[in-house]
């Protein structure tokens, strides 16, 4: 049973109180991320779905009724709905299957299919390819894409200039692409 304070929070949430919302979203983002990751182990897709669910909640705020349940249950309902939408979207498009290396060949021209990204094998290949890069290149790629830092923040961390970070990032991307493509060749040789 929710106590009085909790119910007052629910009412504040329904009215769009920014402080209550800030605390609420901050607590719910990791939870939603976990829900989506459990369904599809693909961090980019999980981020996309978390973002969609939070914005659906903000835009559909007038449909929240505190007497029907907590904001958390309501948000989880929205997330479940987004999972159903994603399943429907996937069933309407052709399934990507076959050799990962075939998709890595067109890495600069075609988007990598979600089904390929969700394979454990793909994550292992990327870890291996990243491990072959220079430590600075690995660090800049992780800072930019995993931590989501901006070039200026990375420059601060690395004690260098923003321009140097951009150059390093460019070189790191090219190196990673090369390693992934080389891996493709060794994979093909291994198959023969």
């Amino acid at each position, binding site marked *: 049973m929710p106590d009085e304070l909790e119910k007052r929070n629910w009412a504040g949430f329904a009215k*769009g109180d*920014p402080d209550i*919302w*800030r605390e609420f*979203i*901050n607590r719910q*983002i*990791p939870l939603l*991320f*976990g829900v989506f*990751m459990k369904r599809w182990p*693909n*961090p*980019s897709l*999980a*981020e996309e779905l*978390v*973002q969609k669910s*939070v*914005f659906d909640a*903000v*835009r559909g*705020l*007038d449909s929240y009724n505190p007497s029907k349940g907590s904001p958390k249950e309501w948000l989880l309902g929205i997330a479940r709905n987004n999972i159903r939408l994603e399943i429907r979207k996937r069933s309407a498009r052709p399934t990507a299957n076959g050799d990962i290396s075939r998709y890595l060949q067109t*890495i*600069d*021209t*075609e*988007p*990598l299919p979600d089904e390929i*990204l969700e394979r454990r094998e*793909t*994550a292992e290949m*990327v*870890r291996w390819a*990243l491990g072959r890069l220079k430590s600075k290149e690995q660090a800049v*790629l*992780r800072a*930019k*894409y*995993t*931590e*989501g*830092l*901006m070039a200026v923040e990375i420059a601060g961390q690395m004690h260098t200039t923003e321009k140097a970070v951009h150059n390093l990032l460019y070189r790191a*991307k090219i190196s*990673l*692409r090369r390693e*992934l493509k080389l891996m493709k060749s060794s994979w093909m040789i291994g198959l023969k």
Partner: protein
Amino acid sequence: MNLKNDNLPFDDSAAQLEKNISRLVKLADDSNKPGRAFTRSLINSALDELKRPEIKEKGITSEVSCWKRAMGWAAMFAAACGAGLAFVLSVLLEINAFFTVIVFFLMFANWMTYFGGLIL
């Protein structure tokens, strides 16, 4: 715009590579938690969205649309009663019922279309 030998505009190619690299590097991370920067940026943009007047006024507009809907139903009911009454009176006063029915049917249909549009 530079063209690479694969005939794809360089900007598009660079953007696609950037997107794919981003998705791949994220895969390499074992953590089951979203990045701090992502969380921070999502909270800020959600709060900005919450502050937008359209979101704030949603409660008020839904009340207004409720009134509009009620008025629509009431007006449709009144138009239907009016048409029925006109038909009964025309029979009782021995007026040419056929023409009266046509006139009131047209009137009724117009009102139904207008208020039906408001309700839906």
